[in-house]
């Protein structure tokens, strides 16, 4: 069965420091990976997806099939990046499989 692992429940960094939120997955086929974000008192929303290969709000994520990882990175964290981040996998159909999430806290 497919699984998404986010090893850190909480990541705390200072403003301006680099950020890397880790995501590892297990899936035998060709998955599609996503990062979703939930800001305080807001609903869950899509941040980026690997097929788009784009940078959103300064965040990027590269799919590494050899390491089965899809880590989310940003070179310089901002206070407004503080949120809950979920890595998710689509098995080629419709449903999403989510990790447990990582709280990112950016301190000033």
């Amino acid at each position, binding site marked *: 069965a497919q699984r*998404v692992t986010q090893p850190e*429940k909480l990541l705390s960094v200072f403003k301006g420091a680099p950020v890397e939120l880790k995501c590892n997955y297990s899936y035998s086929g060709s998955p*599609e990976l*996503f990062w979703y974000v939930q800001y305080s008192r807001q*609903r*869950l*929303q*899509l941040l980026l*997806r690997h*097929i788009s290969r784009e940078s959103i709000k300064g965040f990027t994520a590269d799919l590494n099939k050899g390491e089965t990882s899809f880590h989310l990175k940003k070179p310089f964290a901002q206070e407004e990046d503080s949120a809950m981040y*979920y890595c*998710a996998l*689509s*098995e*080629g*159909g*419709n*449903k*999403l*499989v*989510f*990790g*447990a*999430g990582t709280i990112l806290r950016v301190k000033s």
Partner: protein
Amino acid sequence: GAGVSQSPRYKVAKRGQDVALRCDPISGHVSLFWYQQALGQGPEFLTYFQNEAQLDKSGLPSDRFFAERPEGSVSTLKIQRTQQEDSAVYLCASSLSYAVSRGGQPQHFGDGTRLSIL
């Protein structure tokens, strides 16, 4: 325009009672999904509709859970004889396209219904 709307936002029920949770997807969205999110966990898939057809209900945890979307728009998730382990946030999401992957349109989530079973 309005996003995905869920009601009620909060629901408290006694163990053994039946509950019904409503989801109004974005107008015109073909696909509708229900997820269950336990405290401290990510959302877990429950079921999926394409228009009025329930194409995947593999995530429903027991036969006490039932979902419907009779006219292909509003959906209701019903839980019969609720148990304490049913306490969770129930999220609804909708999508314009038939498939979330391979370039399909993303899922748009509602605020969820927080269900507490006493």
